């Protein structure tokens, strides 16, 4: 059963086509990796699916709801971890997480339970009462992730969630993301860490210049292109390296 469906999705900014006729389906409970270089259209695609941008043409459904007409229903079931951390510097880490839980209308007891669990998972228990404005870059990334997942979303959009995390926290976050998948969550993960996509994703979609140029499991893609990793796959497809998105 498809949880996310894109049909000829296209987004243009003026004359520039950022997402070009993108079609794909993501199964319920699947962890889907979206790979591509800077400006490939990954973040724009996620923004369209979250309702932050209107598509120029095409259609998409998230959780069975049309993004053009049923966005309010979609917002109830999604969690979005933005690429650029967005948080309130004057609130503590705990308050930031709880605020977004309250915006999802979570019952008080459940909110406390989920907040405690997430702060534990991302390693922020000891600094939960510190104002987020005093957090280091890695801590900000972690609270950014916790804010996205506090509502226990059925569908999670994780846009470069582990950038700037230290290796230990990154691996803990990977375990956490695997845990989400194990609980049947549908996840779209954009990343420039090849290892992350290979390790976590059930399937990977490679986007370049707004177009989907490859779609399969990491193993199948590597086998098909006689490559040892997904970076090599991308080089063979485009002649270029995947560069870090900024």
């Amino acid at each position, binding site marked *: 059963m498809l949880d996310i469906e894109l049909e000829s999705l296209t987004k243009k900014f003026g004359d520039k086509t950022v997402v070009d006729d993108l079609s794909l389906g993501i199964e319920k409970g699947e962890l889907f990796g979206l790979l591509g270089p800077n400006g490939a259209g990954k973040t724009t695609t996620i923004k369209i699916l979250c309702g932050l941008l209107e598509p120029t043409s095409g259609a998409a459904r998230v959780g069975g709801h049309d993004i053009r007409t049923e966005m309010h229903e979609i917002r109830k079931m999604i969690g979005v971890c*933005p690429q650029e951390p967005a948080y*309130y510097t*004057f609130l503590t880490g705990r308050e930031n997480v709880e605020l977004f839980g*309250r*915006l999802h209308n979570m019952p008080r007891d459940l909110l406390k339970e989920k907040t405690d669990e997430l702060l534990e998972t991302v390693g922020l228990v000891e600094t939960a009462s510190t104002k987020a404005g005093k957090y280091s870059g890695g801590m900000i990334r972690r609270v950014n992730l916790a804010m996205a997942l506090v509502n226990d979303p059925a569908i999670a959009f994780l846009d470069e969630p582990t950038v700037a995390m230290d290796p230990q926290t990154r691996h803990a976050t990977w375990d956490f993301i695997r845990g989400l998948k194990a609980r049947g969550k549908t996840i779209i993960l954009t990343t420039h860490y090849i290892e992350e996509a290979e390790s976590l994703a059930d399937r990977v979609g490679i986007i370049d210049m707004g177009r989907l140029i490859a779609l399969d499991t990491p193993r199948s893609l590597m086998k098909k292109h006689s490559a040892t990793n997904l970076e090599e796959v991308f080089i063979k497809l485009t002649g270029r390296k995947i560069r870090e998105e900024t």
Partner: protein
Amino acid sequence: MNAQRILALTGKELRKVYREPALLFMVILFPVMLTVAFGATFGALGGGGDTTYAVGVVNLDHSATPWAAAFKSGISATGMLVVVDYQDNSTAMKDLLQGSIDAVIVIPENFGASIDSFRLNPNNPGAWVNSTVGLSLDKGSMIVSAAVPPVVQRVLSTTIYGDMAVSEPQPVRIGNPTLVASSQLSQFDYMAPGLFAYAAIFITMTVAQAFTSEREQGLLRRIAVTPTTPSEIFTSQILANLATGTLQVAIIYAGARLMGFHALGGAAEVAYAFAIVLLLVVCNIGFGLLTASVVKSSGAATGLSFLFILPQMLLGTFIPALQSVGRFVPSYYVTDALTSIFLRGAPLTSPVVLLDLAVVAAMSVVILIAGILAFSRFGKS
């Protein structure tokens, strides 16, 4: 609309007020400083800003004893009280009523005889001639009421005992101070109604900064992917700023009274003041949204917000020279209404007061709707 989401966002905004020093200064400390500064400069503390009080002294003691003169010299020597001589009590009280002086001291006829009797028989109270110094104070100034009686008592004790240790009983006592409501208004009295509006108009800047900085930091986008609706965001901003505005009005009213603001009226008039200033707060939320709709950064929001702040400040608060053209700004009507109520004693049902309220309410609704529409159309990205 969902109450939990609105309360969550309102609480977040209020936390920002007391956790961000710059905002705390703007919202709380600035009105306090403004009120104290204007009160000290133009109000009951004396026109020049020095802490002296004019005290009318009526000397009814025409005996040959030196004590009345010594008492008056002692009052002058405090540096805080300036003696103004009066021949009779009625003239002194008239000047107190007019606000020309802050207090009246009446030295009784038997003042010298009383101290002489004490000096002759310091340990025999039965032989003393008792007398009472009359004291009347300006009821409108809490500072005068609090500060003058102990100073006069100290001077009196020094006059009677010299450098000896003060002990009870004593032959001369000070009568219970009579509080007199002055009918002359100070310059500060005319400014105080404008101060209420003055603080509220800066809400424009705080709202413009709040929306632009949240937009810059990606927080508006982040909230937009939750079930939170735009109307819940706007409602939370309005509630948070109304709470802040209420606190500002309370601070300014208390500060102004402390600094000698002679406000007429009772609880209903004060409630009216809160209501009309809160309408001005709503109006300035609208101006803040209009500002946030057209600027790209919070820095630019600060600058552009003065496009709305300055006209309101210059034309609608306490600068009389320009008030003839003030009818174009909402703060003018707030100041006009509060002046009518607090200084002229106009009833709340008077046409002027009701018209001012109606105009501010209409302006607030129109400007808030314009702000919401503009921000929804142009301000989100």
